[in-house]
């Protein structure tokens, strides 16, 4: 089976639920070493996406990603708004006009993560969302290269995201607001790493459920 944008409402709803469920914890992280607004920012974006979810589900994937990216970019605010917005817009750009399969999507995602790096002038190891996004991108490309079955690829993705998030705990933050706190940042997971891990796991869960469910 292949995933169509008709899944988008479900994906957006599930992401919204998981962010709401973990709001307290993410906020505590952004309060500890940031300014505490990460969840509020994300929720503004998710509210905007929820309002557009059926409309977006009528588009093809690149158009949907573009629309999601622009919505995120104009509603979220903060560092994460530009970064998540850039991620989706860049995915759209890289996927546009291509045949979408595991390889090409993995490639588009990897290019989108490069765009995030570029936008954030940052890289893995700086205690940001990139510590989740970069390993996940690499995992997707590696798995696609060896044609790992989709279910295994997805299951492993979650583990990679969680490991990436955990890796930020002992890092020294060198980008974003947390960097201002220097050594004080050690011992706290990065809020953006947590939110991206949660988003990725939520997306994967929907895809997995859809994979095993009888085709619609």
């Amino acid at each position, binding site marked *: 089976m292949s995933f169509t944008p008709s899944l988008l409402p479900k994906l957006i709803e599930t992401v919204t639920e998981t962010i709401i469920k973990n709001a307290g914890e993410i906020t505590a992280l952004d309060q500890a070493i940031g300014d505490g607004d990460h969840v509020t920012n994300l929720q503004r974006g998710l509210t905007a996406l929820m309002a557009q979810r059926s409309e977006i589900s009528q588009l093809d994937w690149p158009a949907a990603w573009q629309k999601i990216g622009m919505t995120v970019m104009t509603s*979220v*605010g903060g560092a994460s708004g530009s970064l998540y917005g850039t991620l989706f817009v860049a995915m759209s750009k890289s996927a546009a006009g291509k045949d979408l399969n595991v390889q090409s999507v993995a490639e588009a995602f990897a290019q989108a993560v490069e765009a995030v790096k570029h936008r954030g002038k940052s890289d893995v190891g700086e205690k940001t969302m990139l510590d989740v996004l970069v390993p996940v991108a690499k995992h997707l490309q590696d798995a696609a290269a060896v044609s790992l079955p989709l279910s295994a690829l997805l299951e492993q993705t979650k583990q990679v995201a969680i490991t990436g998030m955990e890796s930020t705990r002992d890092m020294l933050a060198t980008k974003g607001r947390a960097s201002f706190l220097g050594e004080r940042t050690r011992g706290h997971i990065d809020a953006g790493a947590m939110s991206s891990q949660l988003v990725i796991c939520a997306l994967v869960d929907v895809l997995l459920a859809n994979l095993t469910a009888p085709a619609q």
Partner: protein
Amino acid sequence: MKKLINHVDTLLDESLHGFAKAHADIIQFNSQPHFVTRLQTTKPSKVAIISGGGSGHEPLHTGFVGFGMLDAACPGQVFTSPTPDQMLAAAQAVENGAGVLFIVKNYAGDVMSFEIAAEMLDCANATVVVSDDVSLAKNHSTGRRGVAGTLIMEKMLGAAAENGADLTFCKALGDRINAATASMGVALTSCTVPALGKPTFHLDDNQIEMGVGIHGEHGRETVSLMPANDIVERLLSTIIDDLQLKSGQQILLHVNGFGATPLMELYLVYELASQYLQKRGINIVRSLVGNYTTSLDMAGCSVTLTILDNELIRLWDAPVHTASLRWGC
């Protein structure tokens, strides 16, 4: 949390509408997307000066829109960078042939949003990043934060643009002002972000936070409460070192309150700072004391010094007519 609000979701809008009405003789407010512009159209020969950033720092930036200062300001949500569509729309509204200069406080979110807006904008533009917070090392991984020096940047660049300086000149001048400006802050309390409803961090009754920014976040270190003289010495010695200030130089001294600091205390800090500077032969030739770059209801203050020359003095003295800074007209 006790605040004079109806609901956190409507706070910003209600406040901006009130701001717009209270100053309808100077500015107008566009609500979709949020930006504030002067009433008067930018003169064709004048560079449009635009700033913006998270709300909660009032009067920065909206209070500085008007003759001699900003052409437009883009307020984000509380402590949250505005989104690129705001700067884009504001630029399109005020640019009138001489290009746009963006003044951006150095925070990842702000820098990226302005960058995206600049990439989308199809007119000449340049960006000056303010990074005056010397509580961070000069080679800090992200560059230093932009704090209360932003007001000085906006005032001087606003005056230069009003005098007809072109975009290249304004950009170079802005970078020069940034290099000549250094700030450092101390917090006595954190602040309460409305959406969160409780203080961002806790300090005991005998603790203060040295080297804070303007978002109610932790600073470089928590230290014991000390007399104002010692606080001023810590702030000023760091600033003086950083600017390599020497006896005989002329400076602007800006003592800025974070929102909940009585003027009485700010003037006291000014007095101690001026004694400290005088002992070192540094001449205060211009001054500004007040709550200008705030962190909601945070108690504490920052001290900012800008090294002045005759050109900068003239720019500082030039007439300005905004909601929160006004002289000469």
